[in-house]
């Protein structure tokens, strides 16, 4: 199973992971348009947290035990048996926020429309997720872990 892990000691809290995540999940994939012109505004599925001198970059961990999937009211959140990835069906999501309530990482959040949730999808169009590819200090690693 693929997931993004973080080397806490290498994270400098620059926030580029958030920026690249936002752009990757925009329609235009263009930084200016993504930040200023698109509606609903694309949101980062990564959150930089800082508590000086520490910082970490948080996103969905595609947990083995998946409280978000168990809690989902509509069946929108599922864990793929093959890839282990936790995915989210936008068409089925009603934005009830039950998954938000139970995610221990706070890694599921309402998107900017306030109607559905947004979470890390491991960048399906890329070999390496955008946050990992663009981390200047190699604090993020895309690794295969046992399910």
């Amino acid at each position, binding site marked *: 199973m693929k997931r993004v892990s973080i080397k806490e000691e290498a994270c400098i809290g620059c926030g580029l992971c958030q920026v690249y995540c936002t752009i990757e999940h925009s329609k235009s994939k263009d930084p200016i348009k993504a930040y200023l012109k698109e509606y609903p505004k694309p949101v980062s599925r990564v959150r930089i947290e*800082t508590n000086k001198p520490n910082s970490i970059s948080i996103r969905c961990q595609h947990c*083995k035990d998946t409280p978000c999937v168990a809690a989902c*009211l509509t069946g929108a959140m599922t864990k793929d048996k093959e890839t282990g990835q936790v995915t989210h069906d936008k068409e089925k999501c009603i934005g009830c926020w*039950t998954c938000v*309530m*139970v*995610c221990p*990482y706070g890694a599921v959040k309402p998107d900017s429309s306030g109607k559905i949730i947004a979470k890390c999808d491991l960048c399906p169009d890329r070999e390496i997720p955008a946050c990992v590819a663009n981390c200047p200090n190699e604090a993020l690693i895309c690794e295969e872990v046992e399910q």
Partner: protein
Amino acid sequence: MTKYVIIGGSAGGIGAVEAIREEDTKGTITVISEEKVPQYSRPMISEYVSKEATLDNMKYRDDQFWKKNNVKVLNGITAKKIDFTTKQVEIDNGDKIDYDKLLIATGGKPFVPRMEGVEKKGVFTFTELSSAEDIESSVGQSKNAIVIGGGLIGVSVSEALVKREINVTLVELKDNILNLILDKTASEIAENVIANNGVTIITGKTVQRIIGRKDDPTKVGGVIMTDNEEIPCELVIVAIGVIPRTELVKDTPLKTNRGIVVDRFMRTNIPDIFACGDVAEAYDFLIDKNRLLPLWPLAYLGGRVAGFNMTGKKIEYEGGTIMSSLKYFDLPIVAVGYINPQNMSGYDELVELKPEKTIYKKILLKNNVIVGFIFLGEIEKAGILFRLLKNHVDISEIKDNLLSEDFGIVTLPQNVRQEMFVVN
């Protein structure tokens, strides 16, 4: 080959089917359901009435679910009796179905008080698809609705009806709506938002009786309030609460309190019989006791645990507690645990209120452990607190930080943080 029988095909029954099939692909599974299409999401019936969802996207599991899991579903069938000695379930056509392991997941039913006029056409409840369909068929001819009960169901149906341009009056006997899950401040903010979206809210009184139309007394024409005020309406929705559907095991040796009593493995007092969901009194991790907790996610989780234990794989139910996430008229709220202590002695409270941004946060602590919290308006980090509450984590080290902007995984105590980043 084990014969599994499950009474009820909603969240609990589905959770059990999934768990059983993870462990046992050979045993036979029979699901007895009163519904025609059991696998829909009950919480979505308000989306159905508001026309934000169709029957098709209300499916909690797809149409192939039963077939894929090799389940025999008896639709539109009611279980009438359980014979504990011969291990059989009798259904309404008189047939008897043998079981080795039985799960009772019959759910809850709406509580309808004895009230004059409650039998009139136009009076509905709101817990299942058929009630939503009945309401749907009356919406066209209705202009005004009274919703009795300001809890989760009452507010949901009010929102749905307002979106269908019905004039809705929501009636709550207590001083505030949602009073079982929110405190006064949060409730008042929610009331404002709901009222601004067109729902008339009346608190502190309720409906005394339902009256008929002048031209047709069998149909709803209005209600008389406890202070004798008369409010005309064509629709009345009774949303006072749900009670466990225990009638199947009434006057039997199967132990019930308000619901069917189960242990941490979802076992009843009778061997090979399990129960879960709204019909069961299961474990609450906050109060360390069993109680009724009629919540969809807990029904599913309890069903899963029951399913595993039915196959012989011993899995303990971690429990639930009062936990609600709300989205009425796009106001996000997460409220968990104990919010309204009768007196504050022994409790500590952290509060942040920014009315201009519609943000309110409150955390209730006892001996430096979180026992309840409300996040209103800004909910992204609610799950982090939920975990601290559930695991009874001592937060004295980070108390001052819990409501700050910086709060997050990074500010958790080192030991708590570390265990989160091992592969789980």
